């Protein structure tokens, strides 16, 4: 069993510097879990505590049923791919991949078998004798992966492995990593700051901000039902529209928009949230509508985005690419209430 459990884990550096606060998450065996959040949110620290590279201030981390708080990194049966790849510059690709197996005192022919196998999977067969400095960024990344794969660990840890690749390579590698996960049938824990990577790769996503876990769920879950303002704003591109509103008798009133809330809410003030695609160019009879003064029009071929003012608020709308709009126009837009969210003014939690 290679599940991973964080049980009330805290990481504190000094009395006033706590980077991970009461982190609780259970990662299932063979799952691809993504830890995502802005820089400094504590995701890398959480990963490194699991790897054994940082001490745990409070709480327990379990791999399977085994508490690993005091177990040395080398005995935890995990493999890690570093953001900088951390390849040994003085060793060949083969030796880099063989190194962890040599540490386990494995027999030479067994080592050779495993290294050749990993090399085949990753397409490194022609590079085995080369040193890291003679490889491209993408090739180095594959060697780092290979070094992790040969160990057949219980858990793979990946710390922002795509951030040093150029955009095109990033896209390709994303797909390859997902295939790899399927083939290896092992738990993957993946840290990134990129919400696109999180949404596309994870079976589940754990979002962190300022050391606090915001929400855990499947990508679809998190996209459709964000638990708070932060998650709603972090996931999804272009970002969700946020419009301050007051609640009066079940109706939310914003400066350019009035909408009847589908559920009663306890708060009197808050933020209305709706994604650009919830804005429609056709107004349903009796449905909520808004007038937008269009500032910028972005035509992407398959999509069209309008950026403009609704009342005193900035709003982004995703409309049919065939709609003809010019900057400066005023358009009437409707709102699909199925994609409506309301966040409490104080707690920022989602009430709808």
């Amino acid at each position, binding site marked *: 069993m290679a599940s991973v459990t964080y049980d009330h884990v805290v990481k504190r550096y000094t009395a006033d510097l706590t980077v991970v606060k009461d982190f609780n998450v259970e990662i299932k065996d063979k799952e691809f879990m993504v830890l995502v959040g802005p820089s400094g949110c504590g995701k890398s620290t959480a990963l490194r505590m699991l790897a*054994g590279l940082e001490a745990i201030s409070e709480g327990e981390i379990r791999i399977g049923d085994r508490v690993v708080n005091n177990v040395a990194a*080398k005995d935890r049966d995990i*493999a890690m791919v*570093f953001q*900088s790849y*951390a390849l040994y*510059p*003085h060793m060949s690709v083969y030796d880099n991949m063989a*190194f962890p197996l040599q540490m386990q005192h494995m027999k030479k022919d067994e080592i050779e078998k495993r290294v050749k196998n990993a090399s085949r999977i990753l397409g490194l067969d022609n590079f085995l004798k080369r040193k890291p400095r003679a490889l491209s960024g993408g090739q180095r990344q594959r060697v780092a992966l290979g070094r992790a794969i040969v160990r057949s660990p219980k858990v793979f840890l990946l710390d922002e492995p795509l951030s040093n690749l150029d955009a095109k390579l990033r896209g390709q590698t994303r797909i390859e990593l997902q295939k790899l996960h399927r083939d290896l049938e092992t738990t993957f824990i993946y840290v990134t700051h990129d919400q696109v990577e999180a949404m596309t790769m994870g079976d589940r996503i754990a979002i962190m901000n300022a050391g606090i876990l915001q929400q855990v769920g499947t990508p679809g879950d998190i996209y459709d039902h964000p638990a708070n303002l932060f998650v709603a704003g972090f996931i999804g591109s272009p970002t969700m529209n946020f419009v301050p509103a007051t609640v009066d008798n079940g109706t939310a009133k914003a400066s350019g928009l009035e909408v009847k809330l589908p559920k009663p809410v306890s708060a009197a003030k808050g933020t209305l949230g709706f994604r650009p695609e919830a804005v429609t160019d056709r107004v349903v009879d009796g449905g909520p509508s808004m007038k937008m003064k269009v500032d910028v029009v972005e035509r992407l071929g398959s999509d069209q985005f309008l950026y403009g003012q609704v009342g005193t608020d900035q709003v982004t709308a995703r409309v049919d690419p065939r709609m003809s709009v010019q900057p400066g126009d005023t358009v009437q837009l409707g709102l699909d209430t199925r994609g409506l969210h309301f966040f409490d003014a104080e707690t920022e939690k989602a009430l709808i």
Partner: protein
Amino acid sequence: MDFSVLLTDIPTLVAVIVGVPLVLAAYIVGGEYLVRRLPDKARPAVRPWIWVAPALLLVTGFLVLPAVGTVIQSFQDNHGNFVGLTNFGNQLSGFPTGGSWIAIRDNLFWLIFYTLGALAFGLLLAVVFDRVPYEKIVKSLIFMPMAISSVATVVIWKFMYAYQPPGQPQTGTLNAILSTVFRQDPRTWVQDVTPILGLFPLNNMALIAAAVWGIVGFSMVILSAALKGIPGDLLEAARVDGAGEITIFRRVIFPLMMPTVVVVGTTLVIFALKAFDVVYAFTAGNYQTDVLANRMYKLLYDHFPSDYANASAVAVILLATVIPVLIFNLRQFRAVEARR
């Protein structure tokens, strides 16, 4: 002390401090002015030479030409007649104790033990100090002997090696430790030629030890910088890969430090072969601690008139010992340049 001397000499000092840069700057400015009067095409061809001329002249005059001169002189006798290899024959006759052979043997000891000693201690200190929070302070303390002259070092170590006859209270630190902790007779460290392990005379080792004490700071500082240049995540990766601390040192840290170890090693070899001050001040080369540099000095100044012929031969022999290092350095330099 005659203080009136101060009054006349200080103005001279000031004149030099201000005058030299001024004169050189004026020379450059003047040269630049002349260059500007040349046609555009000629300027980049002429200008560099003006800038490098003073330095090149001085270097040629004090290093290049004299070196050539000494080599030529080594083939002549003291009256300027060509005598072929006679001088070298003199120096290399009477193996193993005649001619320059003892000096050559001692230089070999210096080459091996000075270099290895300074490297080993430098590495040890760099690695160990890296892991304590008060690293800067202890490094400063180890580094301090580099600021003092070899002569002062010799005085310090003469004292460490001081000898009183057995039975009397020992004033030298080492002999005191020897007699109280190890219950052995005190030794005349600087004069005793008893070979350690059957091969290495004690007094030579004692002199070398004093010199190593003075230079370890140098190798420690450089090796420490190399150590700190190793990216932290390499070590973390090795730890996650299952390597213990000693294995990490053996297979990751040391191999990555190797290029720097080589550079420090070759520099130490050059210093070892140039050794003069320590030997001159400690023993003047007596008790079989002579080295080539000393031998040459003696041939020049303990003889009257100076024995230029043999002294030149000794200098050339010294050069010969350095040539392998010189070639190595040049090769390394060109390799680095090629990669730019």
